[in-house]
């Protein structure tokens, strides 16, 4: 579909959606939101590019290889954060009892393992949505 209005609007709106998605992911322990919702917002912006331009423009932004690496890397990072808690000394996926620095409550870098896990979950959900969309679109060929 070749529509000038949709193209220019999505080109203007996409950076703001992506910044908002990153904001929701990084402030998951401070405000409503978190890894799942922020990742969904970020993935929706990539889907918007592929819908308003064409599939090649979307694949140019984030290729299949990159998407699958980010997907697996997000899940692996979650698991390794849990394993790191064991190595430091504590239970699996423990936060304060394993010795993660909690910081001042209310600041951006606080909460110890919560921020790390939220970022990994956000990466994973965003790449999941993109991979799902690409595969469903290409499945008709």
């Amino acid at each position, binding site marked *: 579909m070749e529509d000038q209005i949709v193209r220019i609007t999505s080109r203007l709106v996409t950076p703001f959606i992506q910044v908002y998605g990153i904001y929701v992911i990084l402030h998951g322990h401070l405000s*409503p939101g978190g890894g799942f919702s922020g990742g969904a917002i970020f993935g929706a912006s990539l889907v918007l590019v592929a819908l308003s331009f064409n599939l090649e423009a979307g694949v140019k932004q984030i290729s299949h290889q990159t998407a699958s690496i980010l997907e697996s890397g997000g899940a692996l990072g979650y698991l390794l954060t849990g394993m790191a808690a064991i190595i430091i000394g504590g239970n699996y996926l423990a*936060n304060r009892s394993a010795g993660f620095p909690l910081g001042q409550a209310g600041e951006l870098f606080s909460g110890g393992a919560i921020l790390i896990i939220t970022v990994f979950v956000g990466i994973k959900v965003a790449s999941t949505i993109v991979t799902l969309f690409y595969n469903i679109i290409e499945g008709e060929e």
Partner: protein
Amino acid sequence: MIYILVIFIVIVTLFLRFIIGVDPKTLFTFYLLGLIIFLFSFTVAEMPPFGNPDNPTFNEVPRRYLESGVAETGAVNIVSSVIIDYRAFDTLGEATVLFVAIAAVVATLKSH
């Protein structure tokens, strides 16, 4: 009252079956769904009111989260501290469900 209701349902059934000509299977499904909605509405009416401090869900578990959640996890957002710190293993299972779902989609839809 109940007689009026029964007579009304019978008249509506006969009207739908013979005047409009609805399929008997469709009628049966229609009434079964109506019965299910009727029974479920009783369940909803029996639920405790929302936000009442005497509710059975307001026990020592949410009290512990609300009182010492910030000190124990360092996160101001209590929901985030529950799903990623107290219930982190549950969230790991949730991420695994997502991973398996996307693996199944790629395995079935990947165009070769």
